[in-house]
């Protein structure tokens, strides 16, 4: 891209970026630095006393079984992967259907897109209401029609299934938007040429459409994992509160709980730093592979 015209002004540009920079430094960089700093200390939550403990907050996470960090890590990965697989598979399938030359396809698209606007918390509340052991209609159906002993507050498998369904349900629309736009940009001539050469619909999808969609698929893969890891806090907080026991306490929920509820600031800070490293790794991974040009 050619360089844009540049105005000559010495002070003005600083005034223009000032609001952004002030917020970035006060609310982003300073707290991030604080997290790193605090992660090396044991802190009394009520006074200001801080004792330097080196890497103890970190080693404790990985060696102390009462902290249950590995357990939290494993369940987070399983949760994020399940959400990604379910929501991508369903969204891709539906986007392929909506991309066919059929009547009402605009209507179908609208009907698939609106749930993007539903907040993660509301998704959690809706599914909680349907599957609440006391009042939920679907919980009642499971109990009285299928004779399932349904109580997700006591059974880990049921809890995991429920939070995964709620989180995936909300994410389908997001994936659908991107898959549909990806499918629409596949050149029609290419498909027609393959059809003339005798490739059937499934072969065309396998050999032409899906490979052309791979940048979209990859982008969504990263975004869905990020969603599963970091943005599903409201679902856990509302639906299971990390339970039964601590079995569904995903990493983000654990940071919040250890910091806000248990007031273990050092450990919470160390966990924040680990999460930061994870986000950084995911972001770099994504930009590397998509070869986005963000250089200056």
């Amino acid at each position, binding site marked *: 891209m050619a360089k844009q015209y540049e105005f000559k002004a010495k002070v003005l*540009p600083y005034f223009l970026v000032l609001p952004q920079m002030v917020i970035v430094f006060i609310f982003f960089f300073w707290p991030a630095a604080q997290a790193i700093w605090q992660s090396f200390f044991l802190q009394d939550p009520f006074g200001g006393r801080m004792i330097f403990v080196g890497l103890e907050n970190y080693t404790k996470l990985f060696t102390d079984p009462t902290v249950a960090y590995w357990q939290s890590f494993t369940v987070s990965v399983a949760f994020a992967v399940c959400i990604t697989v379910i929501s991508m598979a369903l969204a891709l399938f539906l986007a392929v259907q909506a991309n*066919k030359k059929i009547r009402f396809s605009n209507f179908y698209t609208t009907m698939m897109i609106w749930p993007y606007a539903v907040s993660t918390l509301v998704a959690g509340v809706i599914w909680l209401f349907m599957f609440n052991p006391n009042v939920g209609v679907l919980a009642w159906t499971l109990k009285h029609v299928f004779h399932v002993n349904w109580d997700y507050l006591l059974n880990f498998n049921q809890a995991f299934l429920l939070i995964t369904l709620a989180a995936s349900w909300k994410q389908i629309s997001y994936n659908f938007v991107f898959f549909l736009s990806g499918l629409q940009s596949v050149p029609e001539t290419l498909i027609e040429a393959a059809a003339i050469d005798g490739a059937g619909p499934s072969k065309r999808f396998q050999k032409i459409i899906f490979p052309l969609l791979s940048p979209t698929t990859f982008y969504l893969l990263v975004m869905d994992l990020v969603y599963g890891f970091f943005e599903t806090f409201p679902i856990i907080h509302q639906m299971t509160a990390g339970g039964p026991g601590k079995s569904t306490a995903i990493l983000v929920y654990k940071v919040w709980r250890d910091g806000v509820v248990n007031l273990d600031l050092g450990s919470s*800070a160390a966990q924040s730093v680990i999460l930061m490293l994870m986000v950084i790794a995911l972001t770099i991974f994504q930009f590397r592979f998509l070869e986005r040009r963000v250089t200056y």
Partner: protein
Amino acid sequence: MVEHSKFKKLLPHIFLWLGILIMIFPIYFIFVASSHTTDEILAAPMPMSIGPHLIENYSKALTQGSSNMGTPVMIMLKNSTIMALGISIGKIVVSLLAAFAIVFFDFPLRGFCFWSIFITLMLPVEVRIMPTYKVIADLHMLNSYAGLILPMIVSATAVFLFRQYFMSIPREIPEASQIDGATPMQFFRRILVPMTRTPIAAMFVIQFIAGWNQYLWPLLITTKPEFYTLLIGINRMLSGADVQIEWNIVMATTLLALLPPVIVILLMQEQFVTGMTETEK
């Protein structure tokens, strides 16, 4: 053969309707629940058709809220609106100014500013919960609109989108405005911003929805009911330990929390889709 192809033509419609049902059915549940009394819902399974208490439940929710909380939903509706508009408009204004500086001026700290904004992508609230809370507490911004809005109005995505759009503008336009004697700020206000309508609209939809649906942040910094947003209110209504949850009121509130962003997306679907897929690139 004819039967076969007819069925084949119908198949995508069937699949799509199934998809739509998966999306709509849960919403139907909460709508039905918001039209009954709590007793009717508790006598599981609740009725599957709309009951006679619809208006009663919504007006009770809006003016009184649930008994265990006692904050009218009207107040939360107001707070959510202020927060969502504050965040979305704030993000757009701040990002437009920053992108304008970065694209149209050459200054020594340009690269530094650009990368600082880029790095915020890697620091979502979720990974700096406690220290950000402490900053807000030190600035005495707990339980305030400023506290709800200010830390949220940085958006690397918005800056990137505007920057990309600004760079695609023919350089003759700023040049001509300069020759005609317009100051850079006049160019910004009278030419650049009006030209950027479409990306601004796209960003507005996305950021309004994101702002409205903010949960973790208000959960951290609001402790007084008069600053609760709708989503926090719903959480509080559901967390009374000893009292009976008033499901009908909670479900009415849930529907009220769901409607505004859905209406925005339905009205601005085109801008939304462009905005989403443009920022990906």
